[in-house]
């Protein structure tokens, strides 16, 4: 059963405003442990209780605004928890020191 959640511009902006504080609120170590990554689909993580950060809440709100008509409240809550996991994974990458010279592993070519 789908419980539709109406999007209001005010609520959305309020959550986005909180996002500005988000980077410093993220934990320095995320939940994506290497051992867990040894799964059939390494990107999936066990369901554990997670308290979504403000950044996760804001991105969850973006999902609600754009795709809320397809999702139940329960699904939206799970989406937000999974977003939190993603953000923690992203935070872990920041522990690898990169310089301006470190290019991404995706090379653009001018020729076809």
């Amino acid at each position: 059963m789908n419980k539709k959640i109406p999007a209001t511009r005010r609520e959305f902006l309020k959550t986005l405003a909180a996002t500005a504080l988000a980077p410093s609120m993220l934990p320095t170590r995320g939940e994506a442990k290497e051992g867990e990554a040894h799964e059939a689909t390494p990107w999936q993580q066990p369901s554990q209780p997670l308290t979504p950060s403000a950044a996760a809440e804001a991105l969850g709100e973006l999902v609600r605004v754009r795709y809320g008509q397809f999702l139940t409240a329960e699904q939206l809550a799970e989406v937000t928890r999974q977003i939190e996991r993603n953000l923690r994974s992203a935070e872990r990458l920041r522990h690898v020191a990169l310089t301006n010279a470190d290019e991404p592993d995706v090379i653009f070519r001018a020729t076809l």
Partner: protein
Amino acid sequence: MSDHEIAFLSIRELAGLIRSRRLSPVELTKLYLDRLERLGPKLGAVVTIAHERALEQARRAEREIMRGRYRGLLHGIPYGVKDLLATRGLPTTWGAAPYRHQVFDYDATVVQRLQRAGAILVAKLAMVELAGGMGYNTADASFTGPGRTPWNLEYWSGGSSSGSGAAVAAGLVAFAIGSETSGSILTPAAFCGVSGLRPTYGLVSRYGAMALCWTLDKLGPMCRTADDCGIVLAAISGKDPKDPSSVARKFTYAAPLFPTRRLRVGIVKGALEGAQPEVRKNFEEAVKVLKRYADVESDVALPDLPYGPVIGIIVNAEGASAFRDLIESGRLAELQNPRDRIGGYVGMTVLAVDYLHAQRVRTRIRRALDELLSQYDALIAPTRATVAYPIGVEFERAYPGVGGGPPLIPAGNAAGVPALSVPNGFGQAGLPTAFQLMGRAFSEATLIALANAYQRETEWHRQRPPLSA
């Protein structure tokens, strides 16, 4: 020789019989078609059986061979493909309900190349919906139901190349093609007790394959022996102008390769941590065999880099882009697994800067891993820390407290290097265990040679599941 015995012969053994005209490709094709019909449903391994196309190709192969025009080891050999490869006129469902009526009007490059080699396509094989890219966590994540390992039907055949693994293990095809973004060939190979090869990224064209993740997807063979993997890889590898990621390198393989010098092998540090006791014991026994061919060094540490998070962010972002239409249409709701129904929305929120950061870290991973792998012919570890997961149980709850170990699968996939999984015994519930050999980019020949030596000395790859018709 009985039909049952023939069904389980290796490609090389079948080829010997076909070339010498002691086995008819038409009869062999009928034998596999019959097994696919009878046993395929029990395993949840088959989406479409290609009766007409298969028999037409088989008759052509037979005519050619009778006229003395033998194309090579795959001529007249029936095979199946994971149902993410386009095949002209047949449904290509990607394992997902929204695509169950999808039909392409062309063949994927891999299918074309196998046809050129004379192989006979007999079936499109079941797979996890969208190759698992939406984050599934149960065995039934496919519109065809759960894939079952023929060793114990209460257990999963692995994913996402579920049907490819089960069909090879149960003698429904002589070999199969699977795909791997991160673990989708190696895992079903291990859970089904077959040999599975993940080639170097770019060695095999992906033209005509469902895209989940452009910078990670690979296609590779799943066979009864490592030697067979070499035979199939030789047929499907090489540059393809239709796939810009394919590289101008051809893998050649004809006679079985064996080590021509003493090799150097490293056991990945922590390889046995968290592994089930049988997995550990079988791995230690395998190492004893490998020591006849290689100097084996223990506790080789992988560079300390965030392999899992890198893979996770890249798959989330590229997968969301690849399936944006599906996600934005709301049709993810038609997927089988509850987590798959929301995974795409999570992927839509990956920040571009985080995706690029992951790709920048990946460059580091590639360099660091190459530096390590350049010191060894292969690194080894159990392919999986456990045997197959029970069906009906969420993966993370299947074996509480067991699992983990070094992240060799995400590390190897992030770096794009090859790996080969071969069976090495049995564990709980009569289920197979396996170990993997991982090497430097384009070191497939070395991995196959060492695995061939292992399989020459052992009989694990010759064991047959108790599945009856």
